[in-house]
């Protein structure tokens, strides 16, 4: 079978009296070598592809006090997401009601549907934004497509109990749902109290 034949097949006559040496086979079974070779190949293929980390870009805004540099957001298109402990997510739309009635709790699974729903709602309420559409036209983009979600903004407020994974997950959620405007903001005291009250602290 898997073997290499190096021994010559010629059996030339030796003179009388010369003792015929016992002929050893020179055929080497190469199967174990092939096995080992492929085992190593598999190992190297796996290690080579596994060690390439990917990077997630994060751009933070510059701190500014100038009014014209501040990002403006409409109340109606804002969704505020708070990250609590044990992977809990809290959110409210627009402005937080004084009695906290629009403060809701969900999970990382649920927040995606909420973001999608809110985004659709904002797009449906779009009536036209001349300034933005003009800009988009200049850049050669579809004016409606690039402006319809202009008012949609997600405000992310992680609490001190949120983990780094939660933060990355929510930022990832922005990419997944094509949310173009989002901000990471320090949590306000009233919101913190509400989160803590819900978490039963």
């Amino acid at each position, binding site marked *: *079978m*898997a*073997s*290499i034949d190096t021994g010559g097949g010629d059996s030339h006559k030796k003179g009388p009296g010369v003792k015929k040496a016992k002929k050893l086979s020179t055929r080497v079974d*190469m*199967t174990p*070598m*092939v096995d080992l*070779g*492929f085992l*190593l*190949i598999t190992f*190297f*293929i796996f*290690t*080579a592809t596994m*060690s*390439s*980390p*990917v*990077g*997630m*870009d*994060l*751009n*933070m*805004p*510059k*701190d500014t006090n100038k009014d014209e540099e501040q990002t403006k957001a409409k109340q109606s298109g804002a969704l505020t997401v708070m*990250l609590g402990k044990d992977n809990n997510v809290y959110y409210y739309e627009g402005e937080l009601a004084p009695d906290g009635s629009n403060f809701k709790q969900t999970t990382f699974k649920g927040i*995606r549907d909420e973001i*999608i729903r809110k985004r659709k709602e904002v797009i449906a309420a779009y009536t036209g934004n001349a300034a933005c559409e003009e800009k988009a036209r200049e850049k050669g983009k579809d004016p409606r497509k690039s402006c319809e979600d202009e008012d949609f903004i997600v405000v992310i407020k*992680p*609490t*001190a*109990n*949120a*983990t*780094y*994974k*939660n*933060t*990355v*997950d929510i*930022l*990832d959620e922005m*990419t*997944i*749902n*094509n949310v173009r405007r989002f901000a990471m903001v320090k949590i306000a005291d009233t919101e913190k109290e509400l989160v803590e009250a819900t978490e039963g602290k």
Partner: protein
Amino acid sequence: MPSVKIPKKSTDTDMTPFVDIAFLILSFFIMATKFKPAEPVEVETPSSVSSAILKEENALLITIGKDSKVYINVNAVKDPNGEKLNKIIHGINTSRNLGLTEQEMAKFRFAPIIGVPFNGLKQLLSYSPDEMGKVTQPGIPVLDTLNNELIWWVDETKKAFADGSSKLLYFIKGDNDSKYPTFEAVVNALRRNEEFKYNLITAQEGAPEGTELYKERNK
């Protein structure tokens, strides 16, 4: 009836070319593989849908460990003599009045990772590079806004790479379980130095089905 004699063919396959190819591929992979260097701090990164693969570049890698300890590590390409790293430690020594000796500073570029407050730097640099990787480091203090030592590190690193020949990137590699305030403090330290673009190191995962991104990628 005379039976037709079918010549018996040998089932013996010559596997030599097969072996040749196998070992050719094997040698290719051995040469092409770059092993991950042993990590002094074990970090389990979260996964994200991002697909931008990070290259070896000039970077300040800020690692946030499982217990929210902060470590830094400067990655300089095309800097075999560690000139940039020497510049950083000299800068830190002068600006923070640490009183390090030349020998101690010379060891800085061999340190696998730095995770000590400034007052512990002298002791850390007294170890051999092998030992440095083994000792438990307390992490760079960042949580105190008035004394966020990372600001100084970022500042000196920025200065060392300021000659314009190469861009400096900021990598943040955080553990799943590290707490948000630490991440916020790290970002604040960078923001204080007027740096607003970072790369978060994550593991890769696919876009969830049915979402906007999924539609975009599968057009």
